[in-house]
């Protein structure tokens, strides 16, 4: 039967990159009902200023008032009380890989972090469960006046700067955003001063070590006028039995004429429920490019959002997702055009197989007065077998007569012509299918630094390994 591909899901798990979970000892944990006392305790443990404690408590009040989202693709709700909501690993914060315990070093090596750090990155901050355990920033950044450090350290060292933006780009407007702000721990703070160009990207590596963990990473990136920077978030988890939750937030404020690229690579194991609350506010003449690749995980829900606030601001949002096995992979995009001559382009590609569901859900909103705003959205989905699904759910809301907003989408199966061509050159049907899928993603991943392309390809190959043994 055409398109009929059956995989052994357990064997072809992408989390094979990290292998089985290694035991990590925690120094401090917080678990139970989410109350004021819990939030106060967390704030006290982190030695935070009073303004942050109050901010957390306000977010908690919002969390308690807000309804549980009815749009989640889960049966019932997530039992937050069953999760460890704060887990501090028993590890001193390391400044070099050698200082890390062996099990963590092995994780990072499997993800090729040391190699990337040496070759292409201006710094790496590593988070495991709720705390940053690794922080290595190149001197060059300091020389440029760039601030790059863990979020909790920035709250203490640069309170005025952090306070100006924290939870302002992404306020506690729905339950999981409020939960993140109330319980946040970990994440990075990056401040790039005006007229500064950071040539090499900075990376945040996020790991969840085991089942039963609630992770609430919160990152804030501020890029000054006429500056440029690139930021990568790489998420991964080893194989474990049970569920963990990552409810993360990345807030980005981009000042006039600045350029920012944000790369988000998710490589979760099957037990992770992931909410990505990512939003950028973009001022006049500035631009933000989001690039997202998503593999693994039980449920993934992420809609990078760009608010085009300044005249002539631009954004692109590009995502690829592989929904393999019993997974719901929702990679969307939201763009708000609120100023004239703004431009946005959204490209989304998804592949579903072995009963996986890939979803594009997006919104393009053009406010009255956003004259000559232009937006185009393009979605493509491949469904590889009869059990898998692909949904495309875009919303376009245009309140400006001079704007042009277009959307196109296609869902289909693998092209028989391409398969025939590859088979006529000696490839088996399964190998041909694998190659077509890799090629499908390559169109988008070509925008990644070359070292990351090879890592991401490797991860896709692992995911498809039973499909044809590619790689």
């Amino acid at each position: 039967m055409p398109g009929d591909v059956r995989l052994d899901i357990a064997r072809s798990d992408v989390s094979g990159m990290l292998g089985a979970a290694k035991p990590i000892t925690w120094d401090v944990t917080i678990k139970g009902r989410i109350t004021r006392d819990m939030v106060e305790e967390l704030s006290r443990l982190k030695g935070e200023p009073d303004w942050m404690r109050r901010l957390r408590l306000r977010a908690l009040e919002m969390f308690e008032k807000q309804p549980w989202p009815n749009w989640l693709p889960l049966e019932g709700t997530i039992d937050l009380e069953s999760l460890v909501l704060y887990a501090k690993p028993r590890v001193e914060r390391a400044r070099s890989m050698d200082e890390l315990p062996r099990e963590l070093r092995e994780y990072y090596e499997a993800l090729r972090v040391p190699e990337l750090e040496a070759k292409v990155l201006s710094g790496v901050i590593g988070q495991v469960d709720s705390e940053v355990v690794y922080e290595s920033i190149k001197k060059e950044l300091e020389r440029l006046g760039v601030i790059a450090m863990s979020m909790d350290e920035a709250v203490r060292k640069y309170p005025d700067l952090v306070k100006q933006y924290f939870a302002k780009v992404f306020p506690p407007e729905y339950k999981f955003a409020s939960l993140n702000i109330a319980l946040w721990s970990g994440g990075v703070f990056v401040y790039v001063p005006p007229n500064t160009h950071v040539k090499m990207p900075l990376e945040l590596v996020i790991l969840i070590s085991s089942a039963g963990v609630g992770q609430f990473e919160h990152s804030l990136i501020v890029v000054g006028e006429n500056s440029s920077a690139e930021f990568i978030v790489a998420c991964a988890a080893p194989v474990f039995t049970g569920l963990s939750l990552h409810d993360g937030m990345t807030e980005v404020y981009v000042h006039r004429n600045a350029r920012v690229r944000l790369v988000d690579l998710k490589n979760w194991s099957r037990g992770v429920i992931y909410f990505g609350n990512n939003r950028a506010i973009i001022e006049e003449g500035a631009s933000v490019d989001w690039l997202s690749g998503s593999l693994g995980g039980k449920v993934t829900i992420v809609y990078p959002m760009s608010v085009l606030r300044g005249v002539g601001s631009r954004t692109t949002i590009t995502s690829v997702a592989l929904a393999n096995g019993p997974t719901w992979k929702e990679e969307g995009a939201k763009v708000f055009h609120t100023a004239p001559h703004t431009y946005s382009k959204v490209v989304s590609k998804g592949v579903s197989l072995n009963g996986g569901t890939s979803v594009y859900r997006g919104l393009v909103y053009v406010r009255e007065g956003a004259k000559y705003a232009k937006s185009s959205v393009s979605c493509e989905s491949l469904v590889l077998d009869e059990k898998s699904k692909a949904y495309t759910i875009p919303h376009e809301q245009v309140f400006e007569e001079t704007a042009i907003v277009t959307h196109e989408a296609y869902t289909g199966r693998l092209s028989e012509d391409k398969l025939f061509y590859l088979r006529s050159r000696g490839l088996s049907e399964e190998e041909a299918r694998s190659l077509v899928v890799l090629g499908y993603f390559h169109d988008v991943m070509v925008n990644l630094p070359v070292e990351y392309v090879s890592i991401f390809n490797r991860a896709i190959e692992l995911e498809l390994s039973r499909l044809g043994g590619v790689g």
Partner: protein
Amino acid sequence: MSAKWLVELRERARELVPKIPYQQIRDSPSVKYYTDWNAFERCADPNPAMITRAGPVFDLVEPGVAVVNGYLSLGKVPSGVRVLDLEDLGDEYGSLVFKSIDINESKALARHVANLLGGAYVEIAESIDEPLRIIVNTNTNSQVLIPTHYTIAVNDGVRASLGLYIVNNGGCPSTTAEVYLGKGSLLNLLVISMGDSTPEFTMLRVITNENSSVVARSLLIGGSMNHHREDYLLQGVGSRLNHLGLEVGVGSSRIDYQVNAMHLGEGSSSYSRVLGVARDRSFVIHRALGRIFERARWSDTNIEGKVFVLNEGAYAASVPVIMVDTGDVNGARHSAADASLDEDQVNYLRLRGFGKDEVIDLVLYEVAAQFLDSLPEDFKLDREVLRRLLMSRLGQS
């Protein structure tokens, strides 16, 4: 005295009304309602004292069935067509009414059924040369809900043309229709919804059978809050839908037009295109769903929409959704655009001496012509009536 099935149905709906919402939102937080359901709350439940005729009845086309303020009368019914008043239906036929529509779905539907004033059961047993026209006219000074329902069965192998005119001259028309196509049948369907300053609710559901085809043309003009939904359930193997819609927002109208093509039969095919124009202070919404369910293997769906925003203060929204539940799919495609007029076109016309308003008129006429020219030949009389109607409505704005 209503039939037992109808009494029971109304009773069941009445119990549901306070229990269910107008709309379930299972969506992200930044997406809100497209229909202003509060407008329907301002429509009172009907009682005879409130329903008094306010003006002349719509008579631009000759009806086969006319339902004015819920009262049914028969006109020129083609031979081979049987029309029964809902109130006169026995339990056997009554059990077919609302068979495909779940009244638990929304408060709008529950209120509709709880207050059902009338309607008809229509059976098209033989092919007909002339279209059968059903005219639903509300015509009252009171803002009162006027719900009617139509169940239409087209027998196997029959070729027929059906026009459904919903003309709002006051009151809040609430119209549901379910159309069942027999095996190998062909239906040309023309749906006209003419709005007014009061809200109106329409839900049309067409269920296809094996190798049956429907050619549907829908025209929606104005309406302060016009919620209009068309569901095409392509249940039959090899069944086909060809649909073209035109929604025209003028004045301060708001039209929420939803077209759903749901494929349940293998090898079924759908094509839907909706054109929209938003003029003055109107808000024109186009929602469309092309869904291929798991069992509808080797089907294809193509959903298109284009809404022109013609001036400052006019709004548009598009939600073209595709959902594919199987890899054994021939293809699912959609495209949508919310756009101002093409700058090159505008410049070309303006260089030739046309003012901006004239350019807008030209675009409107062009879009209207595309729609009218696409009507099946059976509707040639309707085409001329609609042309005059459209021009007069557009000229008024």
